[in-house]
């Protein structure tokens, strides 16, 4: 009997205490959710100058940045040229780590420009020493027609973000929105082949000067964020080479773009252009995936072989 007396006492006391505690928590939670006090905002801004990558210990730290090619769309194994590059480097005895693959389907130069404002992206870039960039394809092949209106809007926004690049909070909300814009582009990117009919020689070249200007700011911005890293820019190939009426204008546009990119890259000692044009030209059926736009696994493998040669 004495035993049960003590259990009762303990149980009743603990449960009453617990009830009071939980009830207090409940009242507090309801109050906090219904009338959130916005004042107690913690303003730990991310460290603008995070510790740069640890000194060369021989490890190749790779960040990939850009569009669906960086992401690896079209590769049945999902590797893309980024993972394949790392595998190849590892197979050759180097130590290669993937810091992050920040490729997003449908990314355009304008989208990437605002993405470079994000602290998380900058942070990842600072941790790396090899940066693989693939951008421009969407500007050239789709930015001209399908996304014509939205890319104009982004062009207007772009100079503003450039000037306020260190005002991180404001810039970040903006970049979040334009990343959303990039996503709708990605949705269209899946059916990229359908856009082929709309591509005309004029439209291909129309987007070029503006986009090339943005590519310039992007590459310089990356070099500014991480001056130590080697930047490898993936040249474009012509995915429409199998459509007779687009073969010549497509080749011309891609060459013009690649030349523009080469012009930019030649001015910087830490940048390299990795050409891909010749890898795919006349072999589209072998190295493009079923969407007739992205490379397939073998195509990515060829690209990664190039990258490995450039890196080592």
């Amino acid at each position: 009997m004495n035993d049960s007396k003590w259990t009762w006492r303990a149980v009743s006391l603990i449960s009453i205490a617990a009830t009071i505690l939980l009830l207090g928590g409940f009242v507090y939670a309801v109050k906090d959710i219904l009338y959130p006090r916005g004042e107690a905002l913690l303003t730990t801004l991310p460290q603008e100058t995070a510790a740069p990558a640890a000194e060369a210990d021989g490890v190749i730290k790779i960040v990939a940045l850009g569009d669906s090619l960086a992401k690896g769309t079209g590769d049945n194994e999902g590797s893309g040229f980024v993972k394949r590059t790392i595998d190849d480097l590892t197979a050759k005895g180097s130590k290669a780590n993937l810091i992050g693959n920040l490729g997003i389907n449908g990314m355009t130069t304008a989208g990437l420009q605002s993405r470079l404002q994000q602290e998380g992206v900058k942070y990842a870039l600072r941790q790396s020493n090899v940066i693989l960039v693939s951008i421009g394809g969407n500007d050239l092949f789709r930015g001209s027609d399908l996304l014509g209106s939205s890319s104009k809007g982004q062009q207007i926004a772009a100079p503003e973000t450039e000037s306020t690049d260190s005002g991180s909070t404001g810039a970040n909300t903006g970049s979040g929105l334009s990343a959303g814009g990039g996503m709708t582009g990605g949705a269209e990117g899946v059916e990229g082949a359908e856009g082929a009919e709309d591509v005309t020689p004029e439209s291909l070249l129309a987007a070029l000067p503006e986009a090339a200007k943005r590519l310039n700011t992007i590459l310089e911005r990356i070099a500014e964020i991480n001056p130590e890293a080697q930047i490898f820019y993936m040249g474009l190939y012509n995915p429409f080479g199998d459509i007779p009426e687009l073969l010549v204008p497509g080749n011309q546009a891609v060459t013009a773009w690649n030349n523009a990119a080469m012009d930019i890259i030649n001015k910087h000692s830490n940048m390299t252009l990795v050409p891909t044009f010749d890898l795919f030209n006349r072999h589209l059926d072998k190295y493009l995936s079923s969407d007739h736009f992205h490379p397939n696994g073998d195509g990515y493998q060829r690209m990664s072989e190039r990258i490995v040669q450039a890196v080592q």
Partner: protein
Amino acid sequence: MTSLIPLIRNECLKIIKKKRFYIILLILVVLVPMFTYAQMRIADRNKDKFNSDWRLEIQQQITDNQNSLGSDRIPEEWKSYRKIFVQQLQYYLDHDVNPNEPSGVTFTREFLDNSVSLFIPLLIMAVASDLVSGERTTGTIKMLLTRPVKRWKVLFSKMAALLMFVSLIVLAAFVISYLISGLAFGYKGFNVPVFTGFQLNGDTVDMSAVHAVPQWKYLLMQGGLIWFVSVVVALLAFMVSVLVRSTAASIVVMMAALIAGTILTNMASAWTTAKYLFMVNLGLTGYLSGSPAPIEGMTLSFSMGVLAVWGILSVIISFAVFTKRDILN
């Protein structure tokens, strides 16, 4: 008028003697290490991949989610879930706060967030479903009611004892998951900031009211909300146990309702009237962490209102039925 306290005491001792509470503790002690271990494996794997740098991990998570937004095959609702998720992650990243800082406290927070709509209610049911129907299965209800005690007092004492155990179960869930996961992740982390106050508006997140609370406060708030949910579930299970003759049937009824709730929350955003069902509204802690409600138009006040109405109704029905009904067999 006989005092209620001895009656409540009697009911409490019955619950303890039946070892139901120990079984609940045992379930927790067995299951929490499993979750802890699983969580540890995930943490280990991510450590390898991201050089134990959570910022890179979050950035990759954001990128992956943004990529999946591009796909046409993903339903619109999932996209808005992910958009919200991306914006919250971005907020954490921009403020240099690790949302998953590995610690026993963080584990407890996430574990309880995930268990509020099914696991904790199941534990509550283990006690509540048996209270009245158990007496009828064993026939002891006749003994109880032949005493010179009013029926409502008998029922009230049972209900009071049940509510006491609800508090104990919620507390035990917190304490046990903290103590066990602490072995693996360390016992620190009470002062790590957590953001709350994300106002969801379609698929955009209004950050104006977001504020940081130390994790211990967050746990306290979470505990309060879980307690409220548990009380309502307990009252409902109690009603079922009054209405149904056998314990097994009463457990099955409640379990079916709860499981239906988890299925509905996963698929029923088109059927908007489902939001008046109690089992869809159990995820109160979602309002705290800022995860979107399963059905358009659900808010904290709405969910609490629905739960309160269900709870009050079940109390009324329990008392009405129990005081009127003939006890036959």
